């Protein structure tokens, strides 16, 4: 059974996830967390060899890594035009690289954000920026270490698709999308904070 939630229903996944192959020993540096280092040094978390060695299925809808798209754009351009190509990035990758690598972000029917560890809250800011700063309107999917206790936050940050980690129930996870009925602050899903949403009167005896 599928573990993919889109909106509030469980659906089959029509996208094939394309991953960078692991060549030799995986370096520790690839683990989440060193954006400062990347920014200061320009160091990448993947190699040219990995990008070149990435196998891309010849047919069907493919969800490819940002780095592969950037390096092999000419080869993949037609798939994008046909609506069969989506891009994913890791939470430690730089969002601006995605923005500058496509003519129009809304050409992408799907953007995936991969979260390696559920406690990595960068995914929330990335979702927020995609929706509010860059005006992305199509499907925004979280995948990786995606667990039900983070779903409500993901939803509020603009995600509408969640691939729940394989060993957990997507069915159970659906309930968490409704954890809170009236959150305080404005966010992506409802931009109005509660004081603009409803007329809050002071309680009778201050």
């Amino acid at each position, binding site marked *: 059974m599928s573990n993919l939630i889109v909106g509030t229903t469980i659906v089959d996944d029509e996208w094939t996830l394309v991953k960078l192959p692991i060549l030799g020993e995986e370096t520790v540096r690839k*683990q989440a967390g060193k954006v400062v280092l990347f920014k200061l040094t320009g160091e990448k978390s993947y190699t040219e060899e990995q990008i070149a060695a990435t196998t891309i299925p010849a047919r069907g809808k493919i969800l490819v890594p940002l780095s592969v798209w950037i390096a092999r754009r000419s080869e993949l351009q037609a798939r994008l035009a046909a609506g069969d190509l989506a891009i994913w990035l890791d939470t430690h990758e730089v969002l601006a690289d995605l923005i500058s690598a496509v003519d129009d972000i809304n050409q992408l029917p799907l953007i995936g954000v991969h979260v390696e560890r559920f406690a990595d809250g960068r995914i929330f800011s990335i979702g927020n920026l995609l929706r509010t700063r860059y005006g992305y309107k199509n499907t925004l999917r979280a995948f990786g270490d995606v667990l039900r206790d*983070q779903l409500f936050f993901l939803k509020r940050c603009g995600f509408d698709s969640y691939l729940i980690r394989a060993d957990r129930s997507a069915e159970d996870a659906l309930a968490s999308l409704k954890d809170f009925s*009236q959150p*305080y*602050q404005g966010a992506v899903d409802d931009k109005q904070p509660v004081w603009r949403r409803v007329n*809050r009167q002071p309680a009778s005896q201050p």
Partner: protein
Amino acid sequence: MYKYDEIDQAIVDERVAQYRDQTRRYLAGELTDEEFRPLRLQNGLYIQRHAPMLRIAVPYGMLSSRQLHKLGDIAARYDRGYGHFTTRQNLQFNWVKLADTPKILEELAEVEMHALQTSGNCIRNITTDQFAGIAPDEIIDPRAVAEIMRQWSTFHPEFALLPRKFKIAVSGTKQDRAIVQAHDIGLEFYRDSENKMAIKVWVGGGLGRTPILGSVIREHLEWQHVLTYCEAIIRVYNLHGRRDNAYKARIKILVKALGIDEFRKQVEAEWAYLKDSPNTITEAELQRVGQYFTKMPYDTLPAHDASFDSAIASNPAFAAWVKRSVHPHQQAGYRAVTLSLKPHGHAPGDATSEQMHVVADLAEKYSFGELRVSHEQNLILADVKLSDLFSVWEQARAAGLATPNIGLLTDIICCPGGDFCSLANAKSIPIAEAIQQQFDNLDYLHDIGDIELNISGCMNACGHHHIGHIGILGVDKDGSEWYQVTIGGKQGNDASIGTVIGPSFAAEEMPGVVQRLIDVYLQERTDEERFIDTVRRIGVAPFKAHVYAKKEAAHV
């Protein structure tokens, strides 16, 4: 103080339901320890040496009598009859059972309380001056904005899993009492040249392993933009703060790595997009929340009270208590009272269930049913009539709450330390108790005068040792407990980080070390000079020389 409407109530109720299910899944083995950890932490639950520790939020230190009665009940029924007030103005229970925590949270929700975000890598309880709203040197009462920020930060979806904990303090007085410079964000409220409420924003301060005082990121921020500006700061931090090393994950490390100018540039660039977005606070919302923080319905009273004056004249014990524990007030005929949770020989900041009920009753009877927790770990009755002070003193004294040591050497700020906390390197409470015994002479304490002594059991600095005039830090050396001493730290507008005086000491040496520091002060001080002033004037060297000279001599 603020009262919940149905929206606030729904949020804490829904959180209890959510947490109950999370705890059920954990106990059923459906959540791993690692997965449950951030969930329980953001509900204030630590797993400690003896039992889980539950930290309950006291937003900006405000409590009602009803709430304190409830805390007293919980202490009696779910804990061992006491609780510990913390330097973040919260309350901790050290002996609760994990399986009881959903029930405790449900009971707290009944009195508009919760344990939300009192721990974990999220925005923590916002702290402020314990005299907010009544301090004579107050320019702006920051509590309405603090409440608006409490709501905004509660389950803020973008900042639910930050690189590390995030602490905000607000202050609106001439003399800072909220340590704004030692916070991830410090908000200093003032009136600008147009007499409008404005904020000076500090960022990147913090104690812990790498103590750093904050830098000013913005001199002038109009109040309505405080949420969006904080969002800009925290977004830059969320995206770029280090997540590979917990010791380098606080915002202060990022600010230091980038430099305040580059950090400011990134924040301002982010804010350009966020400014004027819907989270901008409206006049109407400030007014709505502000109605809960208006002045109390005071009686019109003369500045003096004859019965009070005669009690002072005839009762030296009362006079000594008034001198230390009673504070000036904006309103004629009223005073604020600090009830000491620092009786000599007891764990600083602890209150028994019975004491909580006594204080709640005192607040009900003499102070409009409200009280505050100070970051110095005492309890405050903010609005007491001069004519009631003697009665308050008698009742507080009977309950062991009137030690006249507020602001003196034995008013020690102290974390729970190695007796309770699984993070600690060393015990802190026995050190505090030993020092209190060493200086168990009130006349002598009064002669030493104003001084702050802070003890932390580890680098995490919950006891704020870096900003103690004397700071004591528990360290681990080859598996045994040692204590490093700093002097010259200070909170306030002229905050400073203390200087380590030299190699650390064994526990039994500590009362003697403090004694020798005091000896140097008493010998060197000029009239009217406090301990901290003397340290700043003559430097660390004379103190160091005396402490270690004695130490070496003793070893010969």
